[in-house]
Structures are given as structure tokens and as C-alpha cells.
């Protein structure tokens, strides 16, 4: 659905149902204010590059887990995909290392992704992640041990925010 067709439809119904029309206008405005950027994830495997829609990833998200997010200082209901399985689906296997590029141009190469504990988060408390909430994709651990001090953010510096692309390093 695009904005032009929406405006046309609202104008048709405005005369018969004024209240409903106002509601529709407000909904349309809120939809228009949703940023159209940061809505894709690039997957790079050698020379092959493909782009996945964040919306599709949200649809495929099948794990919901309540995790204490030390950056927000509270428990958050995170929804997403098991990252290990996602890698196998995309690359056929879990690469020894992955190079991540974030929307804030942060880049890092990390290994050890066989652990099924890693969750590729797409939604938080029922809302899609955006750049403002350190999305649109974020990698977090579904569970971490009590030894980690949630007051020390440096202990969570392996969580990766604002993921824009993932490159397999074989």
C-alpha cells in the first residue's frame, strides 16, 4: 500500500464517516513518520551479496525471551531468531567468524557463533526495533550467568547493535 492510494481512499469515505476518516488520517500520519531507512540487512558471502527485509525477519521471528537489558536497566521482552540457525539458513553452515557493520559505522569481526544462546532480536516489548532503540537488528544473549555484573556495561560489550550487514569470514 502506498501513501497516495491511502489518501484517495480516505477522501472517498470522509463524507459518509467523518470520525472514521479522522482516525484513518492520524494512522496514516503515524505510518508516514515511521522512518523508511534502516529496513534491510545485507548478507555478504564472498562475492555474493543479498538483502533481507527487516520486515521479513520480523515475520520469521519465533523466539520470545525476557532478558534483562543492562543498557535499559530493566527486563525486556525480546523477540527474534536463533542466530546460529539463521546463519545456517543463510550461509549453509556457521562461518568461523563474522564481520558486522552497524548503522553507526561500527565494525567488528567476531567468532564463536555456534552457541545457540545468541538471539537476533527484531522486536522489543512488541515494538519493532529502530535506530533509536539500537536496532533495527541487535544480537544479544538469551541468558547470561549471574557472574556478570549488570552495572558494568563493559561486560556486555559483545552485544552488537544497529546491525546493517553481516559478512561471512571462512
Amino acid at each position, binding site marked *: 500500500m502506498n501513501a497516495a492510494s491511502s489518501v484517495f481512499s480516505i477522501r472517498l469515505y470522509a463524507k459518509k464517516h467523518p470520525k472514521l476518516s479522522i482516525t484513518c488520517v492520524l494512522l496514516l500520519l503515524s505510518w508516514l*513518520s515511521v*522512518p523508511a*531507512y*534502516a529496513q534491510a540487512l545485507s548478507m555478504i558471502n564472498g562475492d555474493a551479496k543479498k538483502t533481507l527485509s527487516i520486515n521479513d525477519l520480523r515475520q520469521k521471528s519465533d523466539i520470545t525471551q525476557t532478558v534483562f537489558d*543492562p*543498557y*535499559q*536497566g*530493566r527486563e525486556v521482552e525480546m523477540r527474534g531468531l536463533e542466530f546460529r540457525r539463521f546463519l545456517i539458513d543463510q550461509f549453509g553452515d556457521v562461518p568461523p567468524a563474522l564481520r558486522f557493520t552497524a*548503522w*553507526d559505522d*561500527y565494525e*567488528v569481526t567476531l567468532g564463536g557463533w555456534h552457541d545457540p544462546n545468541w538471539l537476533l532480536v527484531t522486536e522489543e516489548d512488541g515494538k519493532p526495533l*529502530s*535506530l*533509536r*532503540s*539500537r536496532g533495527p537488528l541487535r544480537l544479544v544473549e538469551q541468558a547470561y550467568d549471574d557472574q556478570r555484573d549488570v552495572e558494568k*556495561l*563493559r*561486560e*556486555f*560489550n*559483545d*552485544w*552488537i*547493535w*544497529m546491525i546493517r550487514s553481516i559478512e561471512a569470514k571462512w
Partner: protein
Amino acid sequence: MTPKAPTPLQSTLSSPAYSPVKRKKRRYVTWLSLSLMSFMALMVVIVYEARWVYPEIQAYFSQTGNLTGQQLATRSRGYLQGAQQQLLGEQPFEADSIQTIRINLDLAYGLLDVEVYRQNYSCTAPSLQTINALSDRIYRGTVTSVDAASELLEPIDCLTRIEMSQLDLRGMAINAFSESTRRHNQVVTYSSMVIFALGLLFWVMHERQLRRAERATEQTLAWMERAMRDPLTGIGNRSALQQEVMAKEGTSLALILVDIDFFKQYNDSMGHPEGDQLLRCLASLLKDVLGEQATLYRLGGDEFAALLPCQNDSLLGDYCDRLTSGLRGADLQHPAHPDNKGVTLSIGAVRFDAREDAFPLAYSEADKALYRVKSAGRDGYEVSLKG
């Protein structure tokens, strides 16, 4: 050169029945284990240092290149300043520029919207509201670029204060960590030195105990050696003979019993000191004639025994011949000999396989042969064939 056969005494000491060393062993183990435990404790301290303390230092000082390597506030400020530059550019409200500005504002918002900032810096929440509202107004075009850029000054100022404060906190944390590391290092150094000194001390105690035990063993050996020797002639006694037979179990041996004829008369006429001298002289003669392979024993009074390897009876006869002819060659005088001869010997010999149960029989047969020689007029030998 043939290796020398062990003496009866050596054989005795190697037997499991002898256990003074065993009895003292527990004490060595105590000192030794204390010493080893000290050195192990030292190793544990070193491993602990390497395994736990070093990563702790890394956690403080090796944050470059990861998520918290640079302050979130610094990164957030960078994006706000990026948005400001864009707003003050030539055409800030073109579609591309607006998108860039909004991305910058969103990134700045995401990096500032952290609980620790909200809790500790009161300017955080108003700054987030400003960024949020401004992003919306820029999108709707209800603000001029200059106004928008100036509205961002307040959040930038807030972020600068956060940065400064966080740097101070980080500095304090590093100072505190450095101080605690210094204290920790002192404790580890001194405790390592104490543990090392204790290890050395225990080792010295162990060595001292070992030397003391060695001295005690040597004394015991000397005592046992004396207990197995005849003090007059320096050769073994009856106990040593039995030990030697047990030590050579399974080999074919010859037992030669030697008795001086009319020794009482010799003593009576020459005196006991001369009698003792004759005994010593005879021991020396037996040794010379039978050679190194024979071990000699004084069984009491004027009776001697020789034990030596022997494979057949004719060889045993040869030994006896050598003894009688050797004695004649020595020409030892016996002024009280009833037959006016020099010193003569009665010799009984037997060959046997060395076994604990075979020895008494062999001894008895040699003794009988000796007494048959005496009964037949002395000065001769007989080899018993019943060994």
C-alpha cells in the same frame, strides 16, 4: 673381573624383613610433602596471577575497538554535530539531507538513551525529548535549519558534560584499580617470598632428616656387621654362615668344616694368646688357599667352615687336598702334638644345593665326615657323598 658376591650382611639388609629405613620413611615424606606443597602453592599463586588478574587489567585498559571502547556520549555527540553541520549546509531540507539528518538524530538518540545516563545525568531526558521533537519538526518542515541547529546545542552541551563526568569517573576507577593492583601485587610478592622460603626451609629439613637417617642406617649396618663377625679372626660367625646359604639359594655349594687337631694341648703348652694367634693364622691360610670365591666362618673354638661354589665332588676333593698341602707348606709348629707333628687339621666336606632345608643335613654330613677323620687318627679329610 668377576663381580664380587654379596656378603651375608648385604644379603641380610636387602631382605624385606629388615625395615629401619621403612620405619623412618614417614618422617621424610612429611618434610618432603610440605616442601612440595609449598612450591605447588607458589605455582598456584603464579597461575592465579596469570589467569585472573591479567584479564582484569585487560578489561580496564583494552577497550579500544569494541562497543564501549569509546564513550556512547562521545559517539552520540558526534552524530548530533553531524546533524548540525548538515542543517547549516547549503540545502538542508532536500530529501536526502533530511534523511541524513534524521539518521544522525536517531543514532544520537539511540546512543544517549542509556539507563546509566538517565540515572546519573538530569539533562539526559530533556535532551532526548529535544532530539525526538526536533526530528519530527524537521520531517514536517516546521522549523528553520538555523533554529534546529541551535536547538541541538543544548543536547550537545549535555553530552559534553556527560563525557567529562564519565572521563572523571573512569579516571577515578582506573586510579582505584591501579591502587588495588599495587596492593595486590605487594601481597602476592611478599606471600610468594614467604611460600618460597618455607619451601626451602622444608627442603632443608628434609635433607637434614635424610642425612640423619643415612647416618643411623650406617651405624645399624656397622653394628650388624660386627654382630655377624668373629672378633678374633675377622671372618664371619655361625649366623653369617646361615645367612650366606640362604642368600645363595639354588646354587651348588661346598661346605668344608675344618678342626685343628689337639688344639687344647696347643693352648695348654703355648698359652691362649698363642692359641689365638694360631686361629688367626689358620683363617689367613684358609683364605689364601681357597681364594676369593670362598667365604670363611669361625663356628666356635677351633672349628672353621668354608663355603664356596662347587660343581662336583672331585673339585671338592681338590680343595681339601690344597688345604692339607697348604698347611704342610706353612709348617706351623705344635710342640704338644702327641704324634710329634706340626699343626694338623681334620677336614669334613660335603657338596649340596643351597636351600634352607638342605643346609642342616649338609652340615650334619660334613660334621660326621670330620669326626670320622678324627676317629681314624686325624690329619686328613673326607668328602661326604650324602649331601
